[in-house]
């Protein structure tokens, strides 16, 4: 195709060719082309097939309002080809075809529409019941556009940006630019979002006079230069808004240019005020075969020529309902398009100047006429026109039907922000009636058409937004209002929704193949409001996000039911207002995990890491995930564990003890210097949420630990439970400040002794004792004798920056004993053998302190009101219906059940908390929470595993702990 290269409005450079592959064949487009315009320029008219009936679909609009031109591009399905810039080497494939778009083997489905009335899948194939599972699978297979494999990895670079501004203007047309300029001139920070790759909106491609011989596109250029010259306006082109929320949070995404570091980036804007200047799209005209390739909207036909340098056809019929249609016909005629006829829905009200020009060019002009049918099996070959009343018909041969019922405002950003629309009889629009707070509409969205009115409304909206920011006076707003009142107001719009047709092949929604007939069927079944009809017929539920059915649906529903006034509202729109890749929402996708100071060292030692809450931790140190060697080494020798993720806190001040008393169940006033106090925290319901140790490090100065999971909430938890007391204490989170090394096993003392200059014999540093010392007079260490793993054990709390040094010293000292790392899983098994619980493993939200056998921690002499959870514990004490934690062994040395498996008889009686093969005991053991009657030693437990069918495994309740019941080993 020869393309224009002389028009001042062109956005393509025909001198720069871009090659691409379509269905295996190489084609060329021009720099500036979209995929759709490049395909069109290469003579491709059928882009794909429709969802249900496999009807041929082609270029209809240029703003991606339907799925007609969604294609697979470089392996990515459902790419909006109208909005996607052509890039060198792109590989483009058709979607939803069996064979090809030209010859689709499933094209016969178009003739079976009678088998698929509205909501057919609710009525048919349900009897006999056996049929439905099969039918459902087939329907699911057929539903949806494009194909994607579960392991598909989205190519491209995605980014995100979070912005703050005074005024956010949505829409870079003339009113949007004026709004941005007027707000910016008041010294405010302004962000302007435009979905097309350039500013200008409805002025940008039109040659009509603006004022004083200046054309509209020249005016657009003038305004955009001024906007771009102001430093306090940030312009985002090719940036679509996808949502607006409370407090004027605006979200969107921007498509990157060649030089940008992103393909798409998510944008989140917090604005003090918002101007919505999104303009209008065309309201599709509904007639038979209204989506046949060759039928396109006025703006599409005009922009194909003016922006992309190609005529949309050879011979055209226009069936339009607004002056832009007449203007487009004249411009395209001047560019060489043969026009068989212009049928205008309106009987009167046309711009006389345009009518004069049409007459001068001898173009056949029919007032009060409309297209009723597009003929041609795959492409438009003829068009039938009819008078509005259907009395007279004429047929024209053509390859292009430019069709548009009128305009319809783009109100999505207003309605998703909970603005209300109301039908306006003059414009035929659903106009903003109640605007969200600090949000203003401007331009064509208000029904304005005169260029000066459009601009002035933008200026007024910009000033109102500036007023919200405290930078504009009421007087200035009053003056702008007066200026607007002195200009042309909203223009009268056409009311026609559908041509006089029965509607079997008249499509109201292209994406879902929903016809006028389907709407009638839904109404016939009693679905009388658009929201219900939308769901029953799927109208507007496709990937075009309701762009095509838009306001046509409520208008048609009102008309068909002959409602006296149009009280019916358009259906709700929801974010995203335009289709958006999930990868765009994901943005840069930085994974933010915490690592311990020993992360690198442990990885070097072969640690296998897992994400555990906010942390990454070494779970295993070999590919044997049963951790046999790690466990046996701790039981017989010495192991080293990185426990740095433990929560660690300092609490100090005159009332620190009172605060500890409040949140811990034990009597915290009895903490002795040099001793470790183990205790637990409960919720008000007595449910145990945390456990840890507390040590005294000075007068009214304590250091305590929490579980890893609770570290983030602990400060707030203590502050919350002391909020009315006015106590004087301070809390500091030292979790990241201190690393923790756990040295466990019978040889632990020998290893530690080699790096410290003090007596650490059992007599000098006994079980449950606490000491502070320095290594090499430099590294301050807080050491505790604990026994979580059931062995002689030292927990060394070391400043994080020194951790590596101390870790290496211990490894060096332990060399002669062959010291080995052990990970979280080995720790889990070791402590399980000892029946030491981990909250979250042996408990869930409803488990209280008594259920897990920690009742001994609760000091019953403390006043209940002083201890969080004590009142509830008092009540729960005699409750026999609660679950109890028990230990169990598997029958006949059977295999270990999975964690979380159910304990059952005729119903569920409990669940397995943790169960593992114990290498120390040489059998499978575990802990379970079971109903009280099952807690008795010797009770047989029937265990139901996920998907086990009728097969059960059995265990027996035994005494706890399983390993070293006297506790000699940890006290040695």
């Amino acid at each position, binding site marked *: 195709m020869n393309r224009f290269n002389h028009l001042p409005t062109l956005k393509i450079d025909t001198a720069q060719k871009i090659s691409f592959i379509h269905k295996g064949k190489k084609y060329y487009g021009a720099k500036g082309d979209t995929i759709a315009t490049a395909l069109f320029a290469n003579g491709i008219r059928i882009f794909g097939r429709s969802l249900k009936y496999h009807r041929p679909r082609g270029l209809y609009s240029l703003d991606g309002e339907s799925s007609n031109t969604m294609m697979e591009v470089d392996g990515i399905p459902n790419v909006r080809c109208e909005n996607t810039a052509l890039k060198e080497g792109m590989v483009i494939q058709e979607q939803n075809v069996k064979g090809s778009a030209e010859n689709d083997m499933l094209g016969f489905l178009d003739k079976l529409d009678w088998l698929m009335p509205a909501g057919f899948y609710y009525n048919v194939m349900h009897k006999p019941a056996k049929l439905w599972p099969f039918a459902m699978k087939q329907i699911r297979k057929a539903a949806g556009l494009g194909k994607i494999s579960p392991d598909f990895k989205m190519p491209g670079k995605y980014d995100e940006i979070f912005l703050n501004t005074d005024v956010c203007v949505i829409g870079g047309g003339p009113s949007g630019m004026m709004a941005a300029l007027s707000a910016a001139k008041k010294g405010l920070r302004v962000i302007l979002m435009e979905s097309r790759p350039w500013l200008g909106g409805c002025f940008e491609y039109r040659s009509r006079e603006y004022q004083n011989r200046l054309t509209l596109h020249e005016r657009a250029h003038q305004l955009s230069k001024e906007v771009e010259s102001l430093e306090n306006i940030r312009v985002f082109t090719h940036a679509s808004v996808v949502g607006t929320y409370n407090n004027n949070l605006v979200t969107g995404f921007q498509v990157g240019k060649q030089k940008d570091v992103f393909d798409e980036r998510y944008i989140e804007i917090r604005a003090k005020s918002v101007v919505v200047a999104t303009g209008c799209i065309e309201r599709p005209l509904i007639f038979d075969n209204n989506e046949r390739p060759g039928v396109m909207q006025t703006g599409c036909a005009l922009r194909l020529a003016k922006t992309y340098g190609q005529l949309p056809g050879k011979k055209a019929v226009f069936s339009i309902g607004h002056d832009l249609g007449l203007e487009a016909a004249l411009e395209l005629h001047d560019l060489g398009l043969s026009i068989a006829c212009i049928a205008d829905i309106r009987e009167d009200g046309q711009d006389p100047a345009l009518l004069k020009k049409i007459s001068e060019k001898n173009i056949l002009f029919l007032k009060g006429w409309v297209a009723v049918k597009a003929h041609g099996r795959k492409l438009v070959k003829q068009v039938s026109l009819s008078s509005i009343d259907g009395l007279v018909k004429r047929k024209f041969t053509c390859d292009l039907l430019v069709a548009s019922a009128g305009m319809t405002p783009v109100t999505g950003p207003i309605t998703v922000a909970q603005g209300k629309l109301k039908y306006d009889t003059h414009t035929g629009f659903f106009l903003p009636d109640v605007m969200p707070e600090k949000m203003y509409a401007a331009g064509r969205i208000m029904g304005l058409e005169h260029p000066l009115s459009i601009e002035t409304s933008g200026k007024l909206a910009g000033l109102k937004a500036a007023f919200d920011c405290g930078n504009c006076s009421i007087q200035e707003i009053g003056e702008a209002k007066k200026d607007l009142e002195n200009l042309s107001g909203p223009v009268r719009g056409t009311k026609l929704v559908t041509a006089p047709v029965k509607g079997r092949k008249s499509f109201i929604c292209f994406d879902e193949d929903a016809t006028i007939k389907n709407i009638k069927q839904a109404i016939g079944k009693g679905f009388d409001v658009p929201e219900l009809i939308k769901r029953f017929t799927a109208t507007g539920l496709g990937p075009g996000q309701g762009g095509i059915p838009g306001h046509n649906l409520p208008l048609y529903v009102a008309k068909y039911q002959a409602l006296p006034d149009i009280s019916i509202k358009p259906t709700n729109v929801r974010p995203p207002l335009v289709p958006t890749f999930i990868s765009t929402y994901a943005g840069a996708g*930085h994974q933010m995990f915490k690592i311990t100071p020993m992360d690198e060292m442990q990885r070097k030692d072969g640690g296998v890491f897992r994400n555990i809450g906010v942390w990454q931790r070494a779970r295993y140190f070999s590919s044997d995930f049963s951790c046999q060697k790690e466990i046996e080494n701790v039981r017989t020798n010495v192991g080293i564990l990185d426990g740095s993720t433990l929560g660690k806190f300092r609490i100090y001040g005159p009332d620190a003890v009172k605060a500890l008393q409040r949140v811990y169940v034990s009597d915290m006033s009895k903490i002795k210097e040099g001793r470790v106090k183990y205790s637990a925290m409960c919720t008000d319901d007595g449910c145990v949420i945390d456990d840890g140790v507390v040590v005294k490090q000075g007068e009214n100065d304590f250091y305590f630990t929490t579980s890893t999971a609770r570290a983030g909430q602990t400060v707030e938890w203590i502050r919350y439970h002391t909020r009315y007391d006015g106590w004087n204490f301070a809390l500091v989170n030292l979790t990241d400040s201190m690393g923790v090394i756990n040295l466990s096993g019978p040889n632990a003392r020998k290893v530690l002794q080699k790096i410290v200059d003090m007596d650490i014999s059992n007599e000098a540093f006994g079980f449950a004792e606490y000491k502070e010392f320095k290594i090499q007079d430099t590294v301050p260490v807080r050491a505790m004798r604990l026994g979580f793993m059931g062995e002689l054990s030292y927990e060394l709390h070391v400043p994080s920056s020194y951790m590596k040094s101390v870790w290496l010293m211990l490894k060096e000292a332990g060399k002669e004993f062959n010291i080995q790392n052990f990970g979280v899983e080995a720790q889990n098994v070791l402590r399980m053998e000892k029946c030491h619980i981990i909250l979250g493993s042996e408990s869930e939200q409803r488990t209280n302190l008594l259920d897990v056998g920690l009742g001994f921690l609760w000091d019953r002499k403390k006043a209940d009101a002083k201890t969080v959870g004590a009142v509830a514990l008092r009540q729960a004490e005699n409750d026999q219906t609660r679950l109890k934690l028990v230990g169990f062994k598997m029958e006949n040395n059977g295999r270990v059940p999975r964690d979380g498996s159910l304990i059952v008889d005729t119903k569920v009686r409990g669940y397995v908390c943790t169960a593992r093969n114990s290498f120390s005991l040489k059998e499978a053991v575990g802990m379970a929470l079971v109903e009280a009657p099952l807690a008795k030693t010797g009770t047989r437990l029937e265990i139901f595993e996920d998907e086990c069918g009728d097969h059960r495994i059995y265990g027996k309740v035994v005494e706890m702990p399983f390993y070293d019941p006297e506790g000699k080993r940890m006290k040695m």
Partner: protein
Amino acid sequence: MKEIQRISPVEFKTSPLKTEKRNNWEVVMEYSGEGGGPYLVDLSHKPRFDLQDAGLAARKPFGIGIPETFGSSVLENGILVNRMNRTQVSLYCLTGQDNTGLPDEPGFTDVTESTIFIALIGKEVFSICEKLTALDFMNPERKTPFLYQGPFSHVPCQIVTLSRDKETSGILLTCSRGYGRDMIHAVLHAGEEFSLKPAGENRFTSWIKNL
């Protein structure tokens, strides 16, 4: 390892050109290929303190008056004092030999080990920041230096804006030490398009002198 060494939670892949031993820290003074800015400087070795007191108005840490407004900061004698809330202040020792000890007064806790501490300096700093946080550094209602306590790359941080004057723009950021690896990765990734490079302490010293 025989020598006791303190390890920073911040690690850059770039090779250090000049280093200095200080209180068992190996402080990098200059990296190779620092470029022309913006710069990311690791200051994790600089002492930082937490001060809590119900009567903050009466306190003068290091002889410096504490700002009354929450979120305000004051930089005096190389010490940055940030008012966090009614009872809490964070203090960063920015200059000197990093041997400022814990004041012998009640209410102080040394939190140097708790966080990473980085400076992001150069004219594109706020373009980098807006890729990582919704905090409004250019809010005209805030006067530098000021403190934000909020998310940066989804992680709770303290961020002090010291300057917004184009070429000398700069912020200081602290967050939990454990996030060091991923925070540095996120910042460097966000700054890639602006040629953000790791830089040694010298860059920071000369920058702060010129404020």
